[in-house]
């Protein structure tokens, strides 16, 4: 007797391979790393219980409960890194969003060379962040930086500026460099949003006597609300996770003054081989990202009614 599946089961069978893929690539690593944050991990001594998954032995290590979290919350370096991370994310999100929006407004206007400008815009975003870091070392370095050279040649400075000498300055340099790298993507999203606003709305606003800024405030901005949500969420998550520029530009220094949570988690896991506390540190970051996303959702999309 031929096997007959209901429509629902048939659909499930069709998506099952994709679901399996998602489980192996996304859900399992996520759950496993969360588990690790509650254990004492020694990669070279994987004693303790283990599970078999597709024929692979996956060690579960020794359960220590909340000990890793207690230890990191007890570390003053964690808290100083957290405040620094919040500053970094706040400054980066603000800069990237405003710069992205500003560039999108310019590129939405009609002028000669606009297609070329739109293409050039994507270059910073398409570069690897290691390359971005090295590029900006070449620009900002105290010894051989192009910016110091230019300022010196123009007679504006006698002595080179050390952009990475003070921690707070170095942190702001990191914000700006990351903004340079990421703002084009925000521009792209905003630009796509602006293109989808019906021209009729602008025409109607013009008839009503609205000027440029009024059209921007009452037509463009409300239409961009879902895009703004997307830009803010992406910028926030990217800001929290940013690691590679720190690796290339400061390694968390001078002292620990550019150490963020992501750098601290990376160091703890991969330099000190403390994978339990390392993953615990990084999961606090995940929790923060989720929290901020919920806040954005409530603030921006809460009153947004999509067209039906």
């Amino acid at each position, binding site marked *: 007797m031929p096997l007959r599946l209901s429509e629902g089961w048939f659909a499930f069978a069709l998506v099952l391979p994709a679901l399996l893929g998602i489980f192996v690539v996304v859900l399992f690593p996520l759950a496993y790393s969360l588990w690790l944050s509650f254990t004492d991990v*020694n*990669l*070279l*001594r*994987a004693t303790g219980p283990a599970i078999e998954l597709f024929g*692979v*032995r996956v*060690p579960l290590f020794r359960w220590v409960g909340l000990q890793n979290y207690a230890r990191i919350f007890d570390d003053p*370096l964690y808290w100083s890194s957290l405040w620094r991370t919040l500053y970094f994310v706040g400054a980066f999100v603000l800069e990237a969003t405003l710069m992205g929006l500003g560039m999108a407004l310019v590129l939405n206007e009609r002028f000669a060379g606009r297609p070329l400008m739109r293409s050039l815009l994507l270059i910073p975003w398409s570069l690897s962040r290691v390359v971005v870091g090295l590029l900006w070392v070449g620009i900002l*370095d*105290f*010894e*051989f930086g192009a910016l110091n050279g230019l300022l010196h040649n123009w007679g504006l400075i006698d*002595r*080179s500026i*050390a*952009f*990475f*000498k003070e921690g707070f300055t*170095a942190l702001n340099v990191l914000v700006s460099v990351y903004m340079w790298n990421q703002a084009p993507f925000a521009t792209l999203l905003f630009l796509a949003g602006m293109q989808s606003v019906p021209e009729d709305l602008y025409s109607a606003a013009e008839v009503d006597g609205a000027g440029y800024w009024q059209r921007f405030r009452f037509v463009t901005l409300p239409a961009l609300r879902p895009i703004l949500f997307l830009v803010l969420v992406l910028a926030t998550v990217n800001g929290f996770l940013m690691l590679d520029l720190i*690796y*290339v*530009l*400061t*390694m*968390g*220094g*001078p*002292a*620990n003054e*550019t150490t963020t949570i992501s750098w601290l988690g990376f*160091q703890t*896991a*991969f*330099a*000190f*081989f*403390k994978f339990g506390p390392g993953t615990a540190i990084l999961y606090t970051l995940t929790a923060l990202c989720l929290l901020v996303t919920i806040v954005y959702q409530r603030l921006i999309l809460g009153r947004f009614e999509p067209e039906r």
Partner: protein
Amino acid sequence: MTTRRAFLGTAGLLGASAVLADGRWGLARADKPVNLSGWVFKPDTVKDYIDFYNNKHHGQVKYEAIPWAQYHPTMETRALAGEIVDVMYCNHNNRERWYENGLLRPVDDLPGVDELKKKMTPANLDSLKSKDGTKLLGLPYFTSLFILIYNEPMLQQAGIKAPAKSWDELVEHCMKLKKDKVSETPFLPNWNNSPSGTMPQFMSDCFSEGANVFDAKNRVIVDQEPGVAKAMERWQKVYKADLVNPEVLTKTSSTDTHRLFWSGRYAYHTNHSYYLKTIAAEPENSKLAPKKAKMVMYPGTGQSYMWTDSYVVNAKSKNLEDAWKLTRFLGGNLNGDWYVQRQWCLISGLDNPYPEMYDHPEIIASYDKWIDLKLLREQYKKGKVISAYKEPWYGEYDTKAVAIVHNMIRGTTAVPKGLKELVALQKSLV
């Protein structure tokens, strides 16, 4: 799996045949491939000598290079997954950890090792041993120490006839060079933020002041050593007087730091010995080549920090015989030939702990192009090793201590307070 008894039996037979037949135990091609993993440093050079080995010694070595930053965690993850890499690079900080956790095996019982031990400098031999001093954990990849380098044309331009012999004199020279506007920042210490920067430099300068950093039980004792405070006060002084490039604190490697010296804008530089090769022998890169930059004996007691990185054999290797043969080729003198050790000396100025290497005419001629070899060998006699890096807390201490030392340098923490913080840091990690 090869048992020790079976291996020794085979090795004994092969050793006897080697004695009788002039090292013919390698004539037959190895049955199984041997895996070699190392961090990325001149991988083409490594490939060349692996090809040489495969051809001349009939090996089947598969080599893989892994970026430095991920190297040790990657090797541990692979071990966790059950992968066996027969021969591995291992830096000094991770050697004891790999031994205690069963990733590497000691090599004391393998054929020919006693001869190599006798040829090795005692200090390097000690640093390659386990914490209890009973086991040899690998053979040397290279050894290095901190040296003091000076820019001869700059000193001459300022009318300084001889390089500084003491730290006070060095500071005096730098003050003069700055005052005379010969150099904006004449001193370039290796205060970078990586594990090869600030802390090895810290230990070097402490040793040169006759101070100890660790006691016999590997406890940090810097708050009890007047020489340490003296070194830190000098660092504060040179930083405050703007004698140092302030961005050296955020340089991410010793390589990046030494490249600054290529510009010829600095008078003095302290860094790993091998960096003088690119500074003084690569005119395509450095303005101080050929041989405009020179080394001078480290000031004070002349002692500086020395370390030894290594090749180690996997404890679970199923091909121990061939793995050991490859290890001897890499870190010793397989069949009496120091091929790999010599290559590193010639190509990169990477030193090794076998003094007899430095009598080789090819080495003498090569070093003569960039350094005073006799002086370098004298400096090596003053090289000081520590055993604290064999402690499980050392890696974390070594990284976290950088911020405390940087705060002392910048004067944001007073020296006595900073030294107490270093002691407290170590205690908190034990």
